[in-house]
């Protein structure tokens, strides 16, 4: 088990290394340049001078070597746009992104598991049919479209929920205020994973219910709740953990759009702004950090397998 985890960790580090090289090559090979230098009111001579001071006139491999050398020592450079250290900027955003994606993921799991199970147990019922179609809608709806519809209904028409941000500035911090700001973004972000998970829980539950040992348990006269809860559910959960691992990158991708619409100060928005203003140090830092989060979540998935099914540890 430990060797397995260590190997996955090593793979993760290798992935991060490759990602950094690829992203570095992409941003530096592109035409244009940092927005800082492409400011209509900065005269071109000045811009070239700043470019030289930032070391952007060196060959790309040399720039990469320099960046990598600093990065392994924990120095990710200074943001062109914000004038602050990249690490500091990123650290400030991590809790926000984790709060939003964590809530969304929790929402997805908490709703998807019971709904998927109900669908599977009452297969072909009207309930199942509604749930199935809803799940299909959930994986098919454009996220930002859903977000705009929600804002129109809940913020503008009904006035129930704040439309953006993560707190009411000027009021003292309160859990209630934070929770209100969290509702719409987390629902929007949860939609895709919720629907996907529900579809999956249903099908693996259906499969599990058809297995021999479930039939045996039923035949033995075990109460239905015990059959479903103890036998079928546990077996249905194992592959679900895999889905969660796969959904994490997708969730963080979805967070980009969600954070932009709801003005949520997270990593995704920072990354989009950095990409648009060509803030090289932040682009690299944010991409690396998000990849690291994914690697980490995959490691957690590996551990979860063992927790749910100790037999896997023996492999």
């Amino acid at each position, binding site marked *: 088990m430990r060797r397995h985890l260590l190997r996955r960790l090593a793979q993760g580090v290798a992935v991060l290394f490759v990602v950094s090289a690829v992203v570095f090559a992409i941003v530096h090979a592109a035409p244009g340049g940092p927005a800082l230098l492409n400011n209509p009111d900065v005269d071109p001579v000045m811009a070239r001078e700043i470019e030289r001071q930032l070391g952007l006139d060196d060959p790309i491999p040399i720039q990469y070597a320099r960046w990598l050398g600093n990065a392994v020592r924990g120095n990710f450079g200074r943001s062109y746009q914000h004038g602050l250290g990249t690490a500091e900027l990123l650290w400030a955003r991590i809790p926000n992104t984790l709060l939003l994606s964590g809530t969304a993921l929790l929402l997805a799991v908490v709703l998807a598991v019971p709904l998927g199970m109900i669908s599977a147990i009452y297969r072909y019922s009207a309930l199942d049919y509604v749930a199935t179609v809803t799940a299909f809608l959930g994986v098919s709806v454009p996220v930002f479209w859903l977000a705009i519809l929600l804002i129109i209904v809940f913020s503008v028409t009904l006035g129930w929920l704040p439309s953006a*941000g993560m707190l009411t500035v000027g009021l003292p911090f309160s859990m209630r205020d934070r929770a209100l700001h969290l509702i719409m973004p987390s629902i929007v972000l949860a939609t895709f994973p919720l629907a996907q998970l529900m579809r999956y829980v249903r099908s693996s539950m259906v499969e599990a219910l058809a297995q021999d040992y479930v039939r045996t348990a039923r035949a033995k006269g075990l109460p239905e709740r015990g059959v479903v809860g103890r036998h079928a559910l546990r077996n249905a959960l194992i592959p679900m953990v895999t889905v969660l691992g796969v959904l994490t990158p997708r969730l963080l991708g979805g967070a980009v759009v969600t954070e932009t619409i709801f003005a949520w100060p997270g990593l995704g928005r920072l990354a989009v702004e950095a990409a648009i203003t060509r803030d090289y140090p932040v682009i690299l830092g944010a991409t690396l950090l998000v990849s690291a989060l994914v690697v980490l979540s995959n490691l957690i998935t590996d551990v979860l397998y063992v927790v749910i099914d100790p037999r896997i540890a023996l492999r």
Partner: protein
Amino acid sequence: MRRVLGAVLAVSLAVVIGAGDARAQGGPPGVLQIAVISDVTLNPFTLPQQLPTLMVSKVIFGTLTRYQPGDGKPVGDLAASWKTMDDGRAWEFKLRPGVTWHDGKPFTAADVKFTLENIVNPQVKALFRSQLQGLQRVDTPDDLTARLVFKDPMPALPIVLGYNIYIAPKHLLDGKDLNTLDEFIRQPVGTGPFKFKEAVKGSHVAVEANPAYHGGAPKLHTVVFKVVPDVNSVVAQLRTGELDLAVVTANHRDTLASAPNLAFKVTVLPSTFYLALNNARWPFNDRLVRHALMHGLNRELMVQRLVRGDAPLAGGPYADAFGPYVNKDLKPYPHDVGRAKALLAEAGFTPGADGVLQKDGKRLAFSLMVDKGNPEREQIALYAQQSWKQLGADVKVDVEEWSVYIKRGNQIPSGDYDARTSWRITSADPDKTAEYTTGGVNNHYAYSNPEVDALMAKARSTVEEGARVAIFRKLQEAIYRDVPVVWIYHQTEILAMSKRVKGYPDLGIRDALPWVHQIAVP
């Protein structure tokens, strides 16, 4: 299982209903909430010149001059009075006595000298250096006198100084690397009406009242600059009262017009939106072609239907905001397709086999570059394409990402484009050397007319007001005749403002913020 479902439904309902009494009522009294689209960096030397940073800077820092509500004339801020010497080559500023920094230290002429000399110091990446071009030194005969000495006359200096030249505290910054200022940008200290309180990246910047402000204690206790990157969120938050002030587009003004809690203020900016034609390239090197493209465009309809926002149709290069310098005799070229076609024929163009005009075997084909993401500008480009196609030109619209658009577009002596959308926001200083003289740093369309060059140079060295006005009016005529670019409209700023806001000065948002201490939100 049904019970589980029931429980889930009950919980979600409770959450939704529980939220019911949270209807937004606007911000707390005494707090002004202003929208900005991105984060800010408060280094007074290397400020990225983006509206959000400038807006926050204007309430924290002081400038020597600011613009008077109503007519926009420069009046004192940190300076109490000034006079010009040596034919406009030197200016003496008497500073306001008794002004203190937010940390309690006194403000003196040494701060002015420190700031201005560092802005022109080549070691400092100061983005506003070009505005103080030719500053040789700042003399400080006493603590309340600063004498600025320039190489050439600077007749419009008081306007320039009020625009973006923030005075920074010498006692905190002397000897530091002004390009980074890690500590200072976390806790900036100025002389403005508000003191820095906190900045949460991606969320907001909050500033609190400076009771010792030289213009009197502010009526607000807090100003919050909220970072709202999505336009629809800005509209939603204006409606719900989560924002009090935001610059909006004409389209959103129409949308918000029905909101009972909002009022609007339109300000004409000293800035013109135009389609630049690269005068260095064929066929735009031919004045007849430029005139034809001007006549071929129904600019009045474009302004009315695409721009709206009370933006005036641009007759020539000078917006109304330049006041007395504007030559009002220059009427906009009329929309006249027949005349446009005649001009192209006169220039030697004949219809080719494919329906596109051609001359000496060269097709009248060019691309029109526009920056991506702004619907209004994209629509203008697409409409121009459609209109010019009807004259027989083959126009391709080239939508480019911002940094590519600027990098290709803003080169001198000529940009890497055929035609492009462009605009430039400046102070109300009518000196347009940068835009309309040969080799000017913003003359990316390579316009060159020796008569204009000479007149502009003459205006720069003329201090006497009446003579200056006459020169500017004359040079506008020459530019108007040449049609170096197709002017579309003079830009306006539409400010959506909550009716709770009282005492907002009669200025655009940039120029109003130095007077924010007069604003109240009961």
